[in-house]
């Protein structure tokens, strides 16, 4: 017997709680559904534009010049007119203005005339890229012109060549995002590569061959032929379908992290759903008592209120889906610079279905307990008799288990990785537990206080008024604020260490790609004592005889053994290194190749002294025994190497040399110009400028994370609002009695304000303490940084959050303050 009119009237009669309930449902799904839709849009854009994203059907990568076997296969296929190909060579080098003593690190991309096969390089002039990039010409990014004070028509010295700037690039199809670049783009014709004379043995170069197939149906077969001809572990052949892209991997990782925050918000919003429904049903208690008194059974009552909840939940879900799409529309602005311009946002129906299912699940699970508890409402509730508090019933435990199962399932489904999922679940569980324990302790202490000040005394009593969800408000706020405070503190410490106060002993300028034969001349030109690090590129093929699965390694989050490493050789430890295991860097009593391993590698694979690692170094297999495990004794920007060999293993391998120096800021430009003029092949990286680039990226990323974390704070805010409305009658009663007894309106205002002040301060201070601890642990153990507490910023965060709680609490209480005693008293007598 559902009574739609009664349902509607009850919802409207308790509209404040109904609105809070709807908003909690909305909040629970907002971030997850918007991120889900956003991810799908990015992914489908990537797939749709995959060819453009790679500018080819097949992409072959290598960090060394291509092997003759592969080149022969390519030539054969080209002759048969089955494919067309274009060579690309990408590397960093310093470029100089012809007439000025200014230079700049730029990312050079040397291309053959057929590039790109798909997509278009868009130029400011609107002309065809292929027409503009003729031998002797350059196409550059606007940033280069701005920084070197040049314009089209001017000349640029690159290596040993002097080339003319012809146009400015706006969009590059296979580099959709340039936020991570260390220098502006410069396009050069393949014909001019030799003239540059910049590439030597061991130079850090990204060699690519782009292939276009004549017949799409032959794609896999041709890719297979090329893969067979390629050198394993050195030359990688991928099709546009299988090739990953750096930006996609970055976005996947970042969205993964944001999803974790979305799940966290969902849990807090779920608590808000439970809290607001409990408050809603508390307002209905007398009605429920009356219904039971006239014969309604529990089944009828629960069914009726489940219908109410379903109406509100459905409405909240639909509004939530709408809001998710709105938020999804805002995300491109938020991710500006991190997203390819070609990403098109689309409303995905699978995201809609996911949203509906999520909303249904969230509402069902988080409303289970309050609805089930309706059984406990007795008819004597009409007499205003409160039921005695009971120990948690079986239903409470079922509720807790349901929530736990839901949370764990959601985490594992969204994250897809059991280990990280388990850490996340443990972390959130621990956070809520610690928040609950600390909140309980502090509130217990506050309850014991008997301050002399009347306003403060009444305010503290108000915290413990019946149906005031003070504990859950504080717990939710603490949990949400810990996330935001921690992000801020970690970011500040990173900024402090690497940007604002650049470590005094850290190098600020790196010279890389020094050829071994140039070392002496370079040192003389440099005129400063420096440590020179030889660098040889190599891959790991096996550990203790177990072959590395490169595909599996690449899929891991964080660093992995599947990538290419910079290997070096020397005889002693560096100043900032110390041994963890091993008698010395190398063992005199061992024969054969030895390698010392940095302890960071142990997080990628289990290794110990005595184990063997198989490398492929410039095509030559080398198996080395681990002689020691090192660690860095302090965090710094000094160069470090994961693998250090004995000299005899690598000294004859093709290599480059680099050095890192500390130079006064005023001298860096002149030094750079002088070195590059004499040694055009040497790349000079001004680390402080690079750090500034990363600082901007970090700032953008933490802004995005904080934006999403704010939604979890919103959950706490909603619980505050719900609690104010739940205790509305009692608050009005208090306010009226105060006034009857002679208090002015400002006294009542002060009591409510101080109550919210205590609430806000308690939550913020506990959150600050916890986040200081968490941030300290992250900075010291994970990031290996020093730690500062940033008292000023901490105080600001506490004050801001407290002010917000006061504003919300008072805002919700405004109508209570306006209530007139006579009106209230008359209503009371009428109701009996």
């Amino acid at each position, binding site marked *: *017997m559902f*009574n739609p*009119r*009664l349902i509607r*009237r*009850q919802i409207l*009669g308790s509209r404040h709680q109904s609105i809070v309930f709807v908003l909690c449902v909305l909040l629970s799904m907002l971030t997850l559904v918007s991120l889900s839709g956003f991810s799908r849009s990015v992914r489908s854009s990537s797939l749709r534009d995959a060819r453009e994203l790679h500018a080819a059907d097949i992409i072959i990568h290598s960090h060394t010049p291509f092997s003759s076997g592969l080149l022969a296969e390519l030539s054969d296929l080209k002759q048969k007119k089955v494919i067309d190909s274009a060579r690309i060579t990408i590397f960093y080098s310093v470029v100089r203005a012809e007439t000025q003593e200014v230079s700049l690190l730029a990312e050079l991309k040397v291309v053959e005339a057929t590039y790109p096969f798909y997509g278009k390089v868009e130029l400011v002039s609107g002309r065809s890229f292929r027409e503009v990039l003729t031998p002797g010409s350059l196409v550059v990014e606007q940033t280069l012109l701005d920084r070197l004070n040049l314009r089209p028509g001017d000349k640029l010295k690159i290596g040993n060549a002097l080339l003319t700037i012809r146009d400015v690039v706006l969009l590059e199809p296979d580099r959709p995002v340039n936020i991570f670049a260390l220098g502006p783009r410069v396009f050069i014709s393949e014909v001019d590569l030799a003239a540059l004379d910049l590439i030597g043995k061991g130079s850090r170069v990204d060699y690519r061959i782009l292939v276009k197939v004549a017949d799409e149906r032959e794609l896999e077969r041709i890719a297979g032929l090329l893969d067979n001809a390629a050198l394993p572990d050195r030359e990688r052949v991928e099709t546009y379908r299988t090739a990953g892209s750096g930006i996609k991997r970055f976005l996947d990782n970042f969205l993964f992290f944001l999803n974790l925050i979305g799940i966290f918000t969902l849990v807090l919003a779920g608590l808000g759903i439970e809290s607001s429904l409990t408050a809603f049903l508390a307002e209905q208690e*007398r*009605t429920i*008592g*009356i*219904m*039971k*008194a*006239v*014969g*309604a*059974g*529990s*089944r*009828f009552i629960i069914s009726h209120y489940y219908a109410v909840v379903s109406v509100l939940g459905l409405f909240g879900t639909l509004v939530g889906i709408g809001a998710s799409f709105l938020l999804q529309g805002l995300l491109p602005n938020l991710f500006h610079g991190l997203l390819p311009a070609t990403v098109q946002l689309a409303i995905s129906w699978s995201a809609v279905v996911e949203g509906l299912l999520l909303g249904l699940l969230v509402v069902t699970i988080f409303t289970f307990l309050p609805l089930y508890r309706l*059984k406990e409402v*007795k*008819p*004597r509730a*009409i*007499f205003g*008799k409160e039921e*005695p508090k009971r120990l948690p019933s079986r239903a409470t435990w079922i509720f807790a288990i349901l929530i736990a199962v839901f949370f764990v399932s959601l985490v594992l489904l969204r994250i897809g990785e059991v280990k990280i999922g388990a850490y996340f679940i443990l972390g959130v569980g621990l956070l809520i537990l610690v928040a609950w324990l600390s909140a309980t302790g502090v509130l217990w202490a506050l309850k014991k206080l008997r301050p002399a000040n009347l306003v403060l005394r009444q305010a503290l009593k108000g915290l413990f008024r019946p149906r005031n969800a003070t504990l859950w408000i504080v717990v939710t706020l603490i949990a949400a604020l810990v996330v935001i405070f921690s992000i801020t503190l970690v970011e500040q410490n990173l900024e402090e260490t690497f940007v604002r106060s650049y470590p005094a002993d850290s190098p600020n300028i790196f010279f890389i790609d020094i050829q071994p034969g140039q070392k002496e001349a370079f040192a003389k030109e440099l005129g400063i004592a420096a440590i020179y690090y030889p660098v040889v590129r190599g891959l790991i093929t096996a550990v203790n005889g177990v072959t590395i699965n490169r595909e599996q390694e690449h899929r891991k989050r964080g660093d992995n053994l599947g990538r290419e490493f910079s290997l070096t050789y020397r005889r002693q430890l560096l100043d900032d290194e110390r041994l963890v295991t091993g008698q010395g860097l190398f063992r005199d009593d061992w024969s054969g190749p030895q390698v010392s391993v940095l302890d960071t590698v142990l997080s990628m694979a289990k290794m110990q002294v005595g184990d063997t690692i198989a490398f492929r170094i410039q095509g030559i297999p080398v198996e080395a025994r681990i002689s020691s495990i090192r660690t860095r004794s302090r965090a710094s920007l000094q160069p470090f190497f994961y693998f250090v060999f004995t000299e005899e293993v690598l000294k004859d391998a093709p290599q480059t040399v680099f050095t890192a120096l500390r130079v006064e800021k005023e001298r860096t430009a002149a030094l750079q110009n002088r070195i590059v003029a004499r040694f055009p092949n040497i790349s000079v990286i001004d680390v402080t400028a690079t750090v500034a680039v990363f600082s901007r990226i970090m700032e953008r990323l933490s802004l995005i994370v904080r934006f999403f974390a704010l939604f979890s704070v919103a959950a706490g805010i909603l619980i505050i609002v719900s609690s104010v409305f739940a205790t509305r009658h009692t608050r009005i009663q208090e306010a009226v009695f105060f006034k009857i007894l002679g208090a002015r309106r400002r006294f009542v205002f002060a009591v409510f304000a101080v109550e919210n002040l205590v609430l806000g301060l308690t939550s913020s201070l506990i959150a600050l303490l916890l986040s200081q601890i968490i941030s300290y642990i992250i900075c010291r153990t994970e990031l290996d940084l020093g730690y500062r507490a940033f008292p000023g910023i901490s105080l600001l965060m506490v004050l801001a959050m407290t002010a917000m709680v006061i504003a919300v609490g008072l805002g919700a209480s405004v109508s209570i303050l306006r209530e007139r005693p006579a009106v209230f008293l008359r209503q009371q*007598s*009428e*109701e*009996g």
Partner: protein
Amino acid sequence: MAILEARGVSKSYTIGNRRIAVLDEVSLNVPDGEFLVIQGESGSGKSTLLSVLSGLDSIDQGAVLIEGREITNLPEDELAPLRNVFMGFVFQSFNLVPALTALENVMFPAELRGDQQARDKAEKLLARVGLAERAANFLHQLSGGEKQRCAICRALVNDPRIVFADEPTGNLDSVNGQAVLELLRQLHRERQTTLVLVTHSREIAGTADRVVTLRDGRIGVDNTYV
């Protein structure tokens, strides 16, 4: 057979650390069709006695029987339909559902029972008490007397065997109070419903078939009239 019987009923409440005995081994028989008044001063336990007799509240000791069937230990889900069919309630504070109109309030118990004639019966009852034109009004649009008349209609819509009235005139002025009382008596006579009414008013008690006086949780006097 008595329609309603209490045997050695005791009831106490815990307030803070104190246990307060409200009813102390109360025994009572109510024959079918009787108009019984339970009288007593404020705090004598009369409202509590009413609530335990009607199954609205539990007891610590003793037994309550309705038509010979013990209801003392019945679970709430069995008591509810019993109340729906067998009993009607009129409270001092009216205890109508604010979100329902007068007509809907009266219909509610009948709808719970699945009575297809619920609307008809409710309209007739409201007309009987002079509220036909107020059927569509919500509670805040009714006066105290009108609310109580509405509550009486609700109590009678399922033709209960017993009507429990707890200080039905307590929140009304004397004119309305008299009118409500007279209505209750009329309906009791017309329908032969057993009427158990709680009051502290001797005047009202004087109109009953029998008066039971409670003092400090015990039955002090049990007379046919005062």
